[in-house]
């Protein structure tokens, strides 16, 4: 064979074989998935993670802990962890050359050799990786923080979001929430969406009293593959549900319903304050504004979770008396509470009927003026407050009423425009506006980490005038407790027991 033919054959072979070899070397979806799982700590690294001769827990090997969920880097406790997105790694930084090859990056991870062979400082650990782990991590580092990184529920022209609502039986308040979410997203889409992407909403029914919420979440996360949940009614997601939320990295945004405790998980944000926070704030208000030196008696109704909330909120409050009963006629030991002198302040947590019973009994048995009677609007609704002083037959024992509100008072006045369950449409609209604002602030490249950073930057955002939303990594409840003061119309009539 002449040299010319040999050369031609070689060229032809290379044209056939080279793409095949190249295709073989391209990372598979599984490789990216493993790299992503290792980076974010969702899969454990098989080898040791060490700083010097000290072995760290395997969870410390998750790159995202220090370098951020998008490889953007972070600063914490005086330590700066640099960005490790590929574009950053390959460029010179601070007088040091860029990493020349994937092998050089692996040397940094496995041997602690940084740019130009310089040793990396603690707390950067050395991490023993298997060949498969090394390949996967390098593959993922090459796409992290770019539009090449696939994000669940996000495509070029749409973002899919979900909401879990108790739509059974039909006609419940959940229908009003659905309407609020749909109307807001439709309005956004009419205006061109967010960075050209339409927002599409998928709603799953959590069933009667939310009994099937877990299955609804599974469908949204795994079948529909939504980007986030918005305005769901999920006051207390189970541990299994939280596991699913974390597994899929789903931000659960501005959830409606009120949990007992403050949200412990940075994936779960709520629109309204927790029960514990509302009780604490109410007690603080009573202590500050009511007559000093008076005892505070706390009564609460038998209601699911309320006892736990009261117990948590009253920790370290040794002067508080707490009893649990729905009918005050049958309260054991209550005889010593009525008619005490000096009269105590009352904090009454329950339905309006329960509050009414306590108010009436306290007024009728009190020999002197009751300083304050405090309630939560979330439980007993808004009392009919009047500002003018009582006169004539009105009892002088009528207490000053303080009502704890789960949102700024200005918003409550606004809500009075709505009748009954229309309030839920309003709250759903607020949730949708919060999601849209977070999405807008996170920019064109959408991912969960960027969105969450935006969400937690909402310190000065007002979806409606006078309704400031404040989220942070430490505080995941958007609205703050406010208080209303006055006397109630029905409190003035002397009742007889």
């Amino acid at each position: 064979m002449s040299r010319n033919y040999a050369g031609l054959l070689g060229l032809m072979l290379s044209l056939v074989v080279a793409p095949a070899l190249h295709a073989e070397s391209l990372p598979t979806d599984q490789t990216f998935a493993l790299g992503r799982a290792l980076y974010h700590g969702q899969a454990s690294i098989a080898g040791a993670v060490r700083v010097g001769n000290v072995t760290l827990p395997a969870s410390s090997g998750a790159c995202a802990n220090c370098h951020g969920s998008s490889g953007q880097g972070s600063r914490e406790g005086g330590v700066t962890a640099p960005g490790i997105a590929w574009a950053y790694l390959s460029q010179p930084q601070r007088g040091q050359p860029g990493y020349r090859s994937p092998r050089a990056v692996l040397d940094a991870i496995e041997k602690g050799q940084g740019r130009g062979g310089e040793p990396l400082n603690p707390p950067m650990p050395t991490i023993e990786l298997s060949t498969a782990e090394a390949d996967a991590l390098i593959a993922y580092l090459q796409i992290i923080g770019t539009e090449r990184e696939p994000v669940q529920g996000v495509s070029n022209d749409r973002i899919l979001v979900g909401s879990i609502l108790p739509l059974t039986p039909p006609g419940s308040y959940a229908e009003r929430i659905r309407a609020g979410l749909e109307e807001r997203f439709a309005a956004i889409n009419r205006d061109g969406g967010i960075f050209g992407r339409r927002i599409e909403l998928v709603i799953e029914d959590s069933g009667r009293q939310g009994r099937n919420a877990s299955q609804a979440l599974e469908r949204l996360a795994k079948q529909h593959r939504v980007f986030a949940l918005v305005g769901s009614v999920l006051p207390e997601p189970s541990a299994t549900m939280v596991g699913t939320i974390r597994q899929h990295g789903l931000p659960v945004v501005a959830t409606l319903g009120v949990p007992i405790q403050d949200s412990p998980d940075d994936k779960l944000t709520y629109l309204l304050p927790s029960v514990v926070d509302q009780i604490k704030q109410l007690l603080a208000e009573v202590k500050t504004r009511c007559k000093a030196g008076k005892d505070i008696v706390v009564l609460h109704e038998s209601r699911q979770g309320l006892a736990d909330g009261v117990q948590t909120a009253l920790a370290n409050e040794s002067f508080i008396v707490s009893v649990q009963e729905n009918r005050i006629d049958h309260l054991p030991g209550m005889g010593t509470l009525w008619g005490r002198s000096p009269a105590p302040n009352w904090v009454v947590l329950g339905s309006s009927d329960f509050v009414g019973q306590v108010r009436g009994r306290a007024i009728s048995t009190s020999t002197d003026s009751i300083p304050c009677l405090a309630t939560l609007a979330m439980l007993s609704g808004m009392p009919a407050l009047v500002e003018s002083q009582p006169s004539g037959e009105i009892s002088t024992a009528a207490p000053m009423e303080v009502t704890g509100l789960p949102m700024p008072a200005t918003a409550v006045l606004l809500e009075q425009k709505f009748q009954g369950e229309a309030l839920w449409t309003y709250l759903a609209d607020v949730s949708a506006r919060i999601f849209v604002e977070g999405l807008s602030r996170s920019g064109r490249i959408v991912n969960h980490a960027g969105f969450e950073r935006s969400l937690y930057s909402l310190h000065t955002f007002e979806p409606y005038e006078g309704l400031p939303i404040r989220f942070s990594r430490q505080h995941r409840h958007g609205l703050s407790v406010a208080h209303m003061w006055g006397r109630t119309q029905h409190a003035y009539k002397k009742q007889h027991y």
Partner: protein
Amino acid sequence: MQPPSRPYAPVAVAFLLLWLSAFHAEATSWLAPAIPDVAVQDQDGRGYRFYSDLLRGRTVLIDFIFTTCKTACPTQTSVLREVRKQLRNHRLGAGSVLLISVTVDPQHDGPHQLREYADRFDIETGIPKGWVFLTGDSQELTKLLQAFGSGSRQPSDHSNVVWIGNEFHRRWTRTAAFNTPEHFTHLLDEVSR
């Protein structure tokens, strides 16, 4: 052939000397902080007075953490776990030194969170075991953190300084958190003499 000139070498040497001198800080009494005797709670909810119950008469190592910290604290805590392990075979003995990890995020870190944090590192806790994790009322704890120069607006801005002291001898020193376990053991030995 001569090697290329290295104009940065003298500067680098000077920095190296400074760095080494920092590592070999002598334990001195003039560093002793004005320690407030504030009420604190450990990882099991037990209440203590910080000075009267925990510091008086003991050799202590005090560091500052928060349980949602992801960058500095896990390494810091792992290093201190190694310190405690080394103390078992040291002249001092594990029981004579109390490691005190104070949260800089008392609003989030209650006893429960501190207990979970310690469990994450498989740390046996309590005074008899030589390690307590502390939280407390925010205002009280702020006094404590400020006394040790670790007060910060955000938990993530807290300092990485570790304090090592013996109140009986009034000897205190402080050092960076990312030193070797041997370095901490050496300083503990020094302040207790």
